[in-house]
């Protein structure tokens, strides 16, 4: 499995942090910050992993995930969702939409990287 990750996030500082962490592990990191066009970008880039924010301008993470899962090509695509809303119902919604891993901000770097490694292992 290749190490190509698409990071869908609109907070520049968080993008910076995650990009730093993943690059160090050998990931090729692409970023995208607009919810409305996120699905198209996934289709175009065909990453091995998607790190997806919940609250995005244009379209929220749950809708993007649902749309991706409806496409047979992305039914097994590992998606790690991050959210700052911190409401218990959100986890439910995300799991129903078919999220691979769900984490609440602020996260610890170790947790994020462990989750990424787990997802890669599961996909192999």
């Amino acid at each position: 499995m290749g190490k190509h990750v698409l990071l869908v996030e609109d907070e520049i500082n968080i993008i910076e942090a995650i990009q730093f962490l993943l690059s160090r592990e050998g990931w090729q990191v692409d970023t995208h910050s607009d919810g409305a066009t996120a699905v198209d970008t996934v289709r175009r880039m065909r990453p091995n992993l998607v790190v997806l924010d919940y609250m995005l301008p244009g379209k929220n993470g749950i809708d993007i995930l649902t749309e991706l899962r409806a496409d047979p090509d992305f039914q097994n695509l590992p998606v790690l969702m991050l959210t700052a809303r911190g409401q218990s119902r959100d986890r439910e919604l995300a799991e129903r939409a078919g999220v691979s891993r769900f984490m609440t901000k602020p996260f610890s770097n170790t947790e994020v990287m462990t989750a990424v490694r787990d997802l890669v292992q599961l996909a192999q």
Partner: protein
Amino acid sequence: MISVNQLVGVSLVYVAFLFAIAFFAERASVRGRGAWLRSPLVYTLSLSIYCTAWTFYGAVGYAARSGMEFVTIYLGPSLVMIGWWWVLRKLVRIGRAQRATSVADLISARYGKSNLLAIVVTLMAVVGVTPYIALQLQSVTLSLSIFSGPEVSESLTISTAFWVAFGLALFTVLFGTRNLNANERHDGVVIAIAVEAVVKLIALLAVGIFVVWGIAGGIAPMMERIDASPIGEWSMDRSRWVALTALSAAAFLALPRMFQVLVVENEDERHLQIASWAFPVYLMLMSLFVVPIAVIGLDIMPAGSNPDLFVLTVPLAEGQGGLATLSFLGGFSSATSMVIVATLALSTMVSNHVVMPVWLSTQAEGAQVSGDVRNVVILARRASILVIIGFGYIYYRLSGGGSALAAIGLISFAGVAQFLPAMLGGIFWRGATRWGALAGLTVGFAVWIFCSLLPSFGPDAVLSAEVFDNGIAGLGWLRPQALFGIEGIDPTVHAVVWSLTLNIGAFLGVSLLTFPTPLERLQGAQFVNVFDHSTQARGWDAALATSEDLMIMAQRILGPNDALSLFREEAQRQGLTGHLPEPTQGFLQTLERELAGSVGSATAHAMISQLVGGTSVSVEDLMAVADESAQILEYSNRLEAKSAELSRTARQLREANAKLTALSVQKDAFLGQISHELRTPMTSIRSFSEILRDTDGLDQAEKTKYASIIHGETIRLTRLLDDLLDLSVLENGQVSLNLDSGSLRDLLEQAVLSAGGDRSTHLTVKYARADTGVVLTTDLDRLRQVFINLITNAQKYCDASKPELSIDVIDMGARVQVVFHDNGTPIAAEARALIFEKFARINDKDGSGAGLGLAICREIMTRLGGDITHEPRPDGNAFVVHLPAQAALAAQ
């Protein structure tokens, strides 16, 4: 020996005499000199049509066969006249008030003017009475045959019957239908039957006196002979005695011909008081010599001679031709008077309730041409008379004059007695209904036909002997003389008891189960309370009283205010002061329409017509009906109000619930937003601090960069918390304003400086036109906060290549507008509605704002007694701050 021809001659002279009397009586009546025709004496004598030929001849035969039982026939009416005169008085009062023309009319009127009931009663009366008419014809021919001797040919008998029938029809047509009085009174007929009453009484008394003193030789020897006769050994059969007395009493009240003379021909109610003792005296005189004649007849006549004719045969046997002729005339009078009045009564019923409705239904125009209808009515009545007497004649011919006719008197009584429950129930019980009356009448009449009429023809005549013994279709409980398996009762008693019991049972039962129509209830009230009403009715004399009564009634039905306004309007239209208009035709029609809307047209019509007619119904009764309607209306209004209240409450609950749900959604969204706003900078801080801690080999530039991010994010967090607290304080109204006066120009300058002081900016701010010298009294610090916010927003969001912000002040005296106009892209219409909401961020590129700034500005401006609005401009956005020059009072 008197020849038949002589007898016929005498009869013709007698009939001519009756015609003459009737004719002169009619003429006197027409000329208004007929007061003497309407004396209590004439009224009493006219009642004597109760005593028919059956009574005149038959009573003696009855006594000869059954002893004293014949007395019941006289006892019943006497008891009614003496003991029940108040019932009669009520009947007479009702009959006159309702202008009832017959028993059928009375019953129909009582039960809501039901024509169905009238037809049923009419048909029952015809069926019950026609055989009785036949009996009278038979008695005349039979008595005539006594004089002609046994060799009389059958053709003579039949032609006699025909000519008698013809003569009676002629008389009835002439004097019964000479005119169409509204009250259906016939002076000529009444005076003729009064004369006949005298003749038959004199005849019977003469024969009796002759028998007692001429044959027996005085009272004492007569008593001895009576004691020695079979009649002296007679013992009373109690059930028959009671049943027959009751039956004759019932028939006296219910017979159509008795109704005719008792009620229809009644001129003055007070006559009834005299008749109540005078008529029993008449009956007593009629019965006085019945037993002596019977006893002497049984003694001196050869065995096997017909005891029914002793009144004739005894004088003849003793050679008293003149007395026998008188006796014949007495019997003739009894027969003819009965036939005339019975036919008159029946023909009225038949023409009014059968012929006229049929005729009217065939006329497209209805009864609009009155003259036309008058002729038709007279024609119908004359035809009915001919048909009924014709029926009697045919019945006489078909029955062959046999023994069947002899029993027809009691059978006929039992038939008409079926009217009694509906009649008496109707005048004493308001709960009696049309369907109850119909059920009682039909059930009673059916039982009468089966148990009394059909068996009277004897076994195998109509009903087979098989039915007599084993019942219809072999059902033992359907035997005509042992209904429901109860055997051993005298057939007459059996028929009377069963028919009347089932009649009353059906009448009561169905009445209780059915609900009377409004018209029935009104009529019921008029019948039952006839005396109360007629006394009160005399109190109304002026039209004003009627208007007041109409008003009261209308108020009960329409409600006080509607009624009052309706009456006021009409009074004004009529040019009257006050609220009581004249009850004109037009107004009555209007009122009726109004009332019909509330209580239905039939009731409304009846109410108005009764009130305006002002005679026979009391205001109280109308009020009772009106109150019922009003109560029902009120009740349904209350229900409606309750149901409206319930649905209102339900709606309020739904709205409250929706509001709570919306609030809850808003709260969730708000918490989610706050969480997001706090967690986002914390995420960066945590992540970068971990990177700094855990990553070896970071160069100095990286370390500085990451530390700056952490620093920036903590500042962002602090600002966010400040804003949240600020907003919370503002929203809860806990903020205290520090009022001070200051120059607007100075305030703007400070704001621009503070906004630009923090960071380098390329935004050009122009506020030359703000140099107005306006001095404000307000919380200067808060206002400055608003200005700074608007300037920083422009710095952040203005996306023009050369961003510009011009600040203008518009001085309107008491109020001031400060316009912040930038040249960035105008905010989209759908976003515009949101910009003042919390956490609304439009085009927030660097994510540094929490979206609370404008929300805070709006809160501050509201506190200061002003407002902040956004106005799209073609070349950018304008935020307008509206504020009062003196904010002190507006704010606090």
